[in-house]
């Protein structure tokens, strides 16, 4: 055999050919007949049963797709229903958080009312005074931050303080109207920055509405002021509610801003949308920013204080009691409800001005739902009983709150008070 590859292949083919020729002599061996018969019989038997098998398979396959679809629906529908029904439960958490924040803010205000009475009169009057002076002075185009920083700090502001009212130049009924507007929404924790912003927003809006061709500056402040007074004196429940809603929106943001020490770059408040932002507003914003910067210096102390508030129900109850004493009865009742929700096992002190039965439980955002607001007839009956017991002032406050919730509700003929008795409310 040759060693060359080509010769190797040729030799192999030649060998194969030789061997194959020889092998053909052995190829006549066949399987025995009985084996073939057995195999062919088996094949015929299988072919005979072929038709029924095919029909059975086709019949089964015909139901494959419908069965798969039915199974998919049966398993998918309950799953989808379960997913969608579990979503609302997951979204209840933020509401509770906002309530906690608001409670902390009010507790902080109450705490400051007690502890920093001397300091707050100085610190609180200055930003409000500065703001309102700028409103009164046409030459003062913008609000400049106070030389001392003029912190418009929430903790140093007390709206019901006489000094503030006097400095603001507002008549008592007007101030009350503002207070009522702000306090009208029980869920609105009227923080001082929010109030200042609201005043400023009101000025902006009145200026925008009445002085379309006027300069952006506060040189037109007298007219704006008159517009402001008109707004405040309007007594329109609708206007009050709209303002309260706006203030509420910004108050919540302000509260969150202070409590959380939000970093710079925060978007403008929602309530400012639609209003013209003028130089005064910019000045006021800078003033607020300065105040915020001052507060940030005291971040550690504030954070620890807020932390202690979160865990000190006594101080929360004290704040709620103050709200109750100041006439914010409905607010106090709802705060008490929130408090009892947070501390369900806490027993109110015996000398506490409210009872657990006075608490109103419910969603903080549903101001107009029947879950929170008492029914009109029940509420009026309570007010009538209050007036019959001689608690006239308290009955008038309650009546004013009643008309905020039910502005068009007719008083019964035998009701001891009239609609005029509902306002003004002494805070």
């Amino acid at each position, binding site marked *: 055999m040759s060693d060359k590859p080509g010769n190797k292949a040729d030799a192999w083919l030649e*060998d194969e050919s*030789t061997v194959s020729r*020889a092998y053909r*002599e052995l190829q006549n061996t066949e399987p025995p007949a009985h084996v073939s018969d057995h*195999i062919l019989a088996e094949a015929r038997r*299988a072919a005979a049963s072929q038709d029924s098998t095919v029909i059975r398979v086709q019949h089964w396959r015909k139901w494959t797709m419908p069965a798969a679809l039915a199974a998919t629906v049966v398993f998918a529908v309950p799953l989808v229903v379960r997913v969608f029904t579990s979503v609302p439960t997951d979204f209840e958490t933020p509401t509770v958080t906002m309530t906690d924040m608001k409670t902390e803010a009010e507790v902080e205000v109450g705490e400051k009312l007690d502890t920093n009475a001397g300091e707050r009169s100085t610190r609180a009057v200055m930003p409000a005074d500065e703001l309102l002076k700028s409103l009164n002075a046409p030459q003062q185009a913008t609000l400049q931050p106070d030389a001392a920083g003029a912190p418009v700090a929430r903790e140093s502001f007390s709206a019901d303080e006489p000094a503030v009212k006097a400095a603001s130049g507002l008549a008592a009924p007007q101030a009350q109207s503002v207070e009522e507007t702000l306090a009208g929404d029980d869920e609105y924790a009227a923080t001082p920055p929010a109030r200042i912003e609201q005043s400023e927003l009101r000025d902006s809006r009145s200026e925008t509405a009445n002085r379309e061709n006027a300069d952006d500056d506060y040189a037109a402040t007298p007219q704006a002021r008159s517009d402001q007074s008109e707004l405040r004196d309007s007594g329109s429940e609708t206007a009050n509610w709209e303002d309260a809603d706006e203030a509420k929106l910004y108050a919540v943001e302000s509260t969150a801003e202070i409590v959380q020490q939000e970093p710079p770059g925060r978007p403008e408040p929602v309530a400012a949308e639609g209003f013209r932002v003028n130089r005064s507003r910019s000045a006021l914003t800078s003033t607020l920013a300065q105040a915020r910067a001052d507060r940030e210096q005291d971040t550690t102390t504030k954070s620890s204080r807020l932390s202690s508030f979160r865990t000190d129900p006594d101080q929360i109850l004290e704040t709620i009691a103050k709200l109750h004493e100041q006439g914010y009865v409905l607010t106090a009742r709802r705060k008490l409800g929130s408090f009892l929700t947070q501390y369900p096992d806490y027993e109110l002190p015996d000398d506490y001005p409210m009872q657990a039965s006075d608490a109103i439980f419910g969603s903080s955002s549903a101001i107009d739902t029947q879950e929170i607001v008492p029914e009109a007839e029940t509420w009026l009956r309570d007010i009538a009983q209050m007036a019959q017991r001689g608690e006239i002032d308290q009955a008038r406050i309650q009546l004013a709150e009643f008309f905020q919730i039910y502005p068009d509700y007719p008083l019964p003929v035998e009701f001891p008070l009239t609609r005029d008795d509902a306002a003004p409310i002494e805070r």
Partner: protein
Amino acid sequence: MLPLMPSKLNDQDLMLHYRDGDALAFEELYGRHKGPVYRYLLRQCGNPANAEEIFQEVWIKVIRGRDKYRPLAKFSTWLYQIAHNCFIDFVRRQDRNALNAASNTEPDELLTETGNPERVAALSQTGQKLAGAIAALPQEQREAFLLRVEGGFGLEEIASITDTGRETVKSRLRYATRKLRETLEDNCHE
């Protein structure tokens, strides 16, 4: 199923007809492949009784597997794959020693066991020598050679049936052919 002319159809079509219930198609198919498959098994195991047993098993598997048959390859390839697997299973079932004893059977004895003494008598001396040489081949070389001469398969198909590489099959065939040719040459010289 319409009447068919089996002889005009290839193996794949016949199997498809049988899959659809045509028994005549299977008879045609069986007639074409019964001899080669039987001889392949007989030369492999060396015992007619065992070859018949494996042979029946192969065709029963073809009958029962007709629903799964897809004409992706030649029918003969599929058929010999079944035969190869059945033989492997048989080898595993049987005692190794018994198989080796069968492999070492003398050519005359082997041919006698085919059950056809007349055929044995009619075989030439060369044929008897060749039958003995085939039986003496290693099992892998013998299988490759038998697939080549009985099934007419190429290297790729043999590699596919035996699940080995093409070059391995080529090598086995070369060794087997050389040994068989040497046997034939020796017989001629004698």
